[in-house]
């Protein structure tokens, strides 16, 4: 792997946090989100001469990161919780207020959760989410509507203290 050209470093610095935050909201695991985002950017670095010519290199990395997250979640849905309890923490634990959204999102079906995070944190429109997920735009609109309703119900004070 060759050293990156200057544009990669700028690209890397500009987009890492944003994608990692999205994955954290989706996965509910800070370390996992960092790890998968790192992996996605490593793949981008390997192919940077080609990817930098894309119209939306950040979209490519985001898609790779989300593919990794979806695959990882499917494989390690149970083990994540188990192993997380055994490993050292590398960052300060988030406060209960901050993880309220993570906890609420866990109650939302995965497809709706992906749509919500991509829309509200990734800034993607319905058409872009539909393209990434390989579904019709109407399906995405349905996911967003139902996901918002379910998430809002989980975010009420009553639900938070239940």
């Amino acid at each position, binding site marked *: 792997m060759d050293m990156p050209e200057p544009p990669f470093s700028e690209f890397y610095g500009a987009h890492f946090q944003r994608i990692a935050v999205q994955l954290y909201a989706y996965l509910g695991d800070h370390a996992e989100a960092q790890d998968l985002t790192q992996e996605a950017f490593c793949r981008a*670095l390997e192919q940077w001469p080609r990817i930098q010519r894309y119209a939306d290199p950040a979209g490519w990395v985001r898609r790779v990161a989300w593919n990794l997250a979806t*695959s990882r979640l499917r494989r390690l849905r149970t083990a994540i919780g188990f192993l997380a309890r*055994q490993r050292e923490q590398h960052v300060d634990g988030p406060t209960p207020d*901050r993880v309220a959204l993570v906890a609420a999102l866990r109650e939302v079906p995965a497809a709706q959760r992906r749509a*919500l995070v991509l829309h*509200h944190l990734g800034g993607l429109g319905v058409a872009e989410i539909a393209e990434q997920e390989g579904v019709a735009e109407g399906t995405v609109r349905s996911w967003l509507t139902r996901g918002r*309703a379910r998430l809002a119900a989980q975010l009420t004070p009553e639900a938070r203290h239940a």
Partner: protein
Amino acid sequence: MPDTLVEDEFARFAEAFTGTFRPVPAEAMPRWRRTRRRGALWLAGLGAALVAALSLNALQPAARPAPAPFTDRVVRLEGARGEMAVGFAGRSNGWVTFNDCRAGGDCEHFLGRTTDGGLTWRRVALPELPAQGRLVARPGPASALIGVTGSPTTVWETNDGGLTWRSIVTDGTSAIVVPPSREISGSWKVTHDGLESHAFHSPDRGSTWRGLEPPVGAEAEVRVSADDRDAWAIAARPTRAWRLTPEGTEAEPELPAGADPSMISAVGEGGLLMLVPGRGVGVWRGGTFTPLPAPLHEAALPIVLSDGAITLSMPDGTLIVGGEHEQWVRYTHP
């Protein structure tokens, strides 16, 4: 109202967590990737086994007793005690770890290996390890890569059966890892390009490569049988299989719904070993999926080793090693 509430909550979340991630410096990314890949396997088995075991249990809560199609072989390692985990690199070569952990995280670790298929085991001296966490090992014929969960910066490697060890410095990244992508496997490789992948064949073991047509599915990985006769590209989204020949790629019939691409291995004779939710572990061949005989099909993590042997991590924590047309042996705690 829900829209505003949700929008505000996401905005607060983004504000709270942007800046809390610690990306590896760009110049250190190649090293991070190499280290991550090298360290991947030693926890992959544990993680994947847990997931598959628990998810399969959830799907099949009413497993029924059946005649055991395997024989038991007790792992006897002098002086060892505690929780046992066995791993094999082939039919003959295997490693075992014992973890004797007490309240407060104080653990004593034991490591052993066999070169005769588990008939006999001998102790292997360990390097100095932090007395916390659970010892896990990645088995190789004469090598082992060991680490302790909870302390991902401590990984030790031996390549001479445990006579000498050397530490591998990692970047302290997440302890949860997955098997490395096998993009290159001898004479075959695939490259990823958005929603499709491109397969290549090398007639001279990697000196030159020839692209194969047509392209295969997204995020594909190469799987080659132990006898090198079967080569496949397994795509992840959706899960599909293409047979690879020097002349090109050929799409196979649809795989069983839900088959996890990361747990598909070439088992030879045109077969793919896979784990299918609700149906368990079995062999897919020519468009037909046949589960392994009970209770082998309940295995959590099926792996085809380099010599063609199959290891099955069972939900009860035991390991069964064998093959489609061979005797199966279950390794049990003394």
